[in-house]
């Protein structure tokens, strides 16, 4: 835990300290089906925390609990605490809309808005909520698209519908869209699972860039991806945390036999 503390101290010195996520005793249900059991984890600022595990282990549910998207599913319920900035996002006076604005999310399947152009998609959040001038929106759009490493590819087709881009470009457009509202944390739910290897590589490079400014939480079923980009790794099984620690430790000398089995591909 001393490593965590060190990172934390370091982060505090440049006002990123408030972007830490702490999950305590988190339980989540779909109807009567319990998807998460007593999950606890910390996601540090300026680091990538990855969540791995076989499908159905609850990793997507966990990440969706961090910005209160889980409750959007019919019959879904949550108990426990998720501290962001020291505040419990599940406290009664908290506005889920505000939580989601500050904790952005990128989904597994790219979901650009089909009725909006590339330019508008990138600033969709700002357009729908704020009252920015056209020029300002354009400037912010360009900035977000550059941040997502997409600008050079789309600068000549900004007026085309977002759905016309390739799969990898669509996903980066969604990342741009999430970045444009200037979140403090970026949640990524298997952002590259539907992409080809080249696009995946671009996304991974992008994640490496983004972690200098954001707290990044990445769900992936691809262990190599976790090993490549993550600083911290959480291994889950059947809705429970099996092991959490620095990525290198998880992948080289895990404490738990089940983690080792999964890492080495022996798990069912």
């Amino acid at each position, binding site marked *: 835990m001393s490593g965590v503390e060190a990172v934390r101290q370091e982060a505090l010195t440049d006002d990123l300290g*408030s972007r830490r996520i702490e999950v305590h005793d988190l339980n989540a249900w779909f109807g009567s089906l319990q998807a998460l059991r007593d999950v606890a984890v910390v996601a540090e600022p300026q680091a990538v925390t990855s969540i791995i595990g076989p499908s159905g282990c609850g990793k997507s549910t966990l990440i969706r609990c961090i910005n209160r998207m889980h409750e959007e599913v019919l019959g879904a319920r949550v108990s426990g605490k998720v501290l962001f900035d020291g505040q419990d996002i599940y406290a009664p006076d908290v506005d889920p809309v505000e939580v989601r604005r500050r904790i952005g999310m990128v989904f597994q399947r790219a979901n650009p808005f089909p009725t909006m152009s590339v330019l508008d998609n990138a600033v969709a959040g700002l357009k729908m909520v704020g009252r920015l001038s056209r020029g300002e929106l354009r400037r912010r759009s360009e900035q977000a698209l550059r941040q997502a490493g997409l600008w050079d590819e789309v600068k000549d087709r900004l007026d085309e519908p977002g759905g016309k881009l390739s799969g990898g470009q669509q996903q980066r457009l969604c990342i741009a869209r999430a970045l444009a509202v200037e979140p403090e944390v970026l949640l990524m739910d298997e952002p590259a699972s539907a992409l080809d290897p080249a696009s995946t590589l671009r996304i991974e490079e992008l994640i490496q860039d983004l972690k200098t400014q954001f707290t990044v939480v990445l769900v992936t079923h691809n262990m190599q991806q976790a090993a490549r980009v993550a600083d911290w790794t959480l291994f889950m099984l059947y809705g429970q945390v099996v092991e959490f620690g620095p990525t290198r430790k998880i992948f080289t000398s895990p404490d738990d036999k089940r983690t080792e089995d999964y890492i080495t591909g022996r798990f069912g």
Partner: protein
Amino acid sequence: MGTRLGNLRPNARGTPPLRRRSRLGDRLFKGLSVSMAAGLIALLALLLVVLSVGGYRALSKFGLHFLTGRNWNPVFGREDFGALPFIFGTLVTSAIAIVLAVPVAVGLALLLNEMQLGWLRNPLAVFVDLLAAIPSVVYGLWGLFIMKPVFDHTVEPFLTNTIGQVPAIGALFRGAKYCVETQVGNPRACVKFGYNSNGGDLFTAGVILAVMILPIVTAVTREVVAVVPRDLREGALALGATRYETIRMAVLPYAKSGIVGATMLGLGRALGETIAVSMVVGNGLGIGPSLFRPGYTIPAVIASEFREATSVGVHRSALLALALVLVVVSLVLAALSRMRVRRTARLVGGPTPAGAAEIPALEVTG
């Protein structure tokens, strides 16, 4: 340093974080949409209340006689409201419509869903649905000027001379033997070749109704047939069964209850149809076995008498009571039908995917 940051917290940007804002837009929008949805329930309730209150005077004054009496006289002072002739006419025309439409609708649904029609399937389905889009008054106009003469001079004499000669059911197809009282002012509306030659009649109205309800019965039947699991069919076909045997063994037994539901919905539509029927039914008050005599229906009498109906006597109340009877019967039929179709879907195949047939307005209800 740490303290300064501590003071700046919880948010470096200086705004109190995460706190719930009033979100007026959200509350307003949700409130409005909830009330418009609940408004539908209120609408139905209001409709029933208004018609009950309006019809109360007539129903309480005449009691059961309102449903069984054969005399309908709105002249103030001699008021008598026995609605049996209208009930009779409504039931007979609807029965004719059901008898004619349901077999064709089932055949049509099987043709569209079970036979490999290729490119023909979609246009055929659309044409059938378009029948439901034709306005009632156009059916009436066509029925009155085109179909009725043909029925009067060709179809009905033919039926009288053939099925009419069969004992028992033949009575249905023999012509009315006398003039009908309500055809006052139109003395030509009398007997010619033993059938009524000028006013309309129950049979013609029933046939028009059959065409009008065909699309809705077909659509609901298709919805039911569509949920019969594919493997049942393929199982039968794999056994070497013919198309006919497959449908009889694997499709119809499962769809039967739903077809009954479709029939009930069609019946509800037929009972409430007004304009086309009133144009061809003849508006005669008699009750008798012949289908070729003029009749009168509940919707038709409401449409033709509402202008004279004032609240001086109970005439207006009587018409509202008729509307009440009509809406209660059709709503009960619709509810039963809906539940039956749903149950079929659940019994055979779990929850139905929202297919086109499930979209009620895409049936272009008429």
